[in-house]
């Protein structure tokens, strides 16, 4: 009884509307960093991509760099490759995550060891997994050595190109390894919160396994699944290290293209690099806005985390 009252009181306090000024005071250091460094960085990037680059003798504002970027066929090849790779990585990771979360929930809900191992990829830097993928999948990597020793291929030349390749298999492998635990844990949190009552009802009504999944589990996890997928998509769309190490030389993924243009000896391609960076930022922001929308819709229905 006592504890119940305490929670009720503290909830009441949480729900009372606070003066925004006091709250902004508490958030001031964080907001200052985000406004000045993050917002400032993007704003200054925009100014530079609009051609204000006094160091190079350019001081008028122009949309030339954006139109130049948008007229560049290489940019569209990069954009296409980036969309293809972040979409396929996200979709495959999402599919694996759904089955992993269901298996996890059914089989290993309480095993701390499995849970610990499962979380390892979350903390491993992308650069390390990219290095590991090179060692594993390169033409002279571990997999190729294994196949040769098993007599399945007769030389490294017979091993398919999986790193720095056209289809980005190496990039996909690195991203999937990294993102599956993240998506799985997002879904798992919802599955655990939902309990098993609905599934019991489904079973009493003689629903098969597929029907239970399709009409009960999937609708429950969908908002979190969508939000997690969008976050992963946004991340893979803008990340640099993995495609820099595992990507082919042409066409490059967009973040690599942006950086290459930015660091080009020709100062004039610098604004174009920044413009490409801003295109990335815009796509990522749109994906996050959609993720936020999904989570809020879910919260209204009462099924969010």
């Amino acid at each position, binding site marked *: 009884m006592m504890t119940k009252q305490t929670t009720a009181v*503290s909830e009441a*306090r*949480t*729900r009372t*509307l*606070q003066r*925004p000024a006091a*709250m*902004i005071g*508490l958030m001031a*250091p*964080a*907001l200052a*960093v*985000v406004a000045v*460094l*993050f917002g400032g*960085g*993007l704003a*200054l990037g925009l100014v*530079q991509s609009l051609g204000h680059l006094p*160091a190079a003798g350019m001081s008028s504002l122009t949309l030339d760099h954006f139109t130049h970027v948008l007229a560049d066929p290489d940019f569209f090849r990069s954009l296409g490759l980036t969309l293809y790779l972040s979409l396929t990585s996200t979709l495959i990771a999402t599919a694996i995550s759904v089955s992993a979360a269901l298996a996890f929930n059914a*089989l*290993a809900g309480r*095993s701390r*060891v499995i*849970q610990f*191992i499962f*979380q*390892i990829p*979350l*903390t*491993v*830097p*992308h650069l*390390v997994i990219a*290095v*590991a993928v090179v*060692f594993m999948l390169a033409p002279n990597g*571990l997999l*190729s*050595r294994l196949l*040769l*020793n098993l007599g399945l291929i007769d030389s*490294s030349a017979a091993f398919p190109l999986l790193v720095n390749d056209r289809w980005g298999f190496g990039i996909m492998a690195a991203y999937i*390894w990294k993102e599956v635990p*993240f998506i799985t*844990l997002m879904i798992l949190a919802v599955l655990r919160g939902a309990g098993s009552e609905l599934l019991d009802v489904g079973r009493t009504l003689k629903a098969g396994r597929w029907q239970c999944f399709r009409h009960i589990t999937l609708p429950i996890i969908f908002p979190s699944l969508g939000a997690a997928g969008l976050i992963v998509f946004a991340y893979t769309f*803008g*990340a*640099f290290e993995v495609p820099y190490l595992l990507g082919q030389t042409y066409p490059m993924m967009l973040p690599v293209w*942006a*950086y290459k243009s930015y660091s080009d000896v020709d100062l004039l391609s610098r604004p174009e*690099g920044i413009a490409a*960076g*801003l295109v*990335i930022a815009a796509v*990522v922001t749109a994906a*996050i*806005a959609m993720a936020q929308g999904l989570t809020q819709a879910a919260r209204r229905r009462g099924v969010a985390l």
Partner: protein
Amino acid sequence: MKRVIFGSAVAVAVLLPFVPLALWAFSSRWFYPHLLPELWGLRAWTYVFDTAGAQMAEALFQSVRVAAVTAILSVIGGVPAGRALGLYHFRGKDLLSVILMLPIIVPPLCVAMGLHLWLLRLGIAETFGGVVLVHLTACLPYAVFVMWGVFSNYNPEFEDQARSLGASPLKVVVRVMIPLTFPGIVVAALFSFLLSWSQYLSTLIIGGGKITTLPILLFALMASGDRPVAAAVSIVFVAPALAALAVSARYLGSRRMMGVW
């Protein structure tokens, strides 16, 4: 039985990429097509800690220094903001939380390219401080989100009790709030540290090659093609991440582990 199969599948999938790393790091000669190193040895490690010891120690020191300062600043900004978001309701909260969330996802590439020229003019590009500032844009919001979670489960009535016993505001913070949220603060600091620790491109752009952290060294090694040494440095690079995971698993259980990229 099924549980054992699932557990082993998870373990294999997660641990497989570390196999070639470990093999390369402890090989002295390993030509294609041998499945295992022909000659095991510590050549890579003697190179890392002896021959190139000074360069390696410098990179390690630089990485630790940047990440530690970034983590401390992130926590200082993250605790009050997390308190505001986790404990109170106020107008504009949704908007402010989205604004704070953006830097976590928008790649540091875009921000670093924009900031570079400005920091050059201010004379802080290619310095330690400049690199910390650009890392802070990504790490501080992350600390805010960890602390938001911590403060949503925090009961501020202990503070009322301390206040009614005559504690000053400063004393309430130091003797009540910080001890009660300490595990969360540790995790926020750890994750900000890790996020800064694994930054590559923003360090490269703002540091301009002058601030050589571990990832910058690792990329150079990968380009040079010395696999044993690159593998050894990768292991050094990943070690704090695994240590942090172990520590936070003890402190907080599993839920708060989500979202370190």
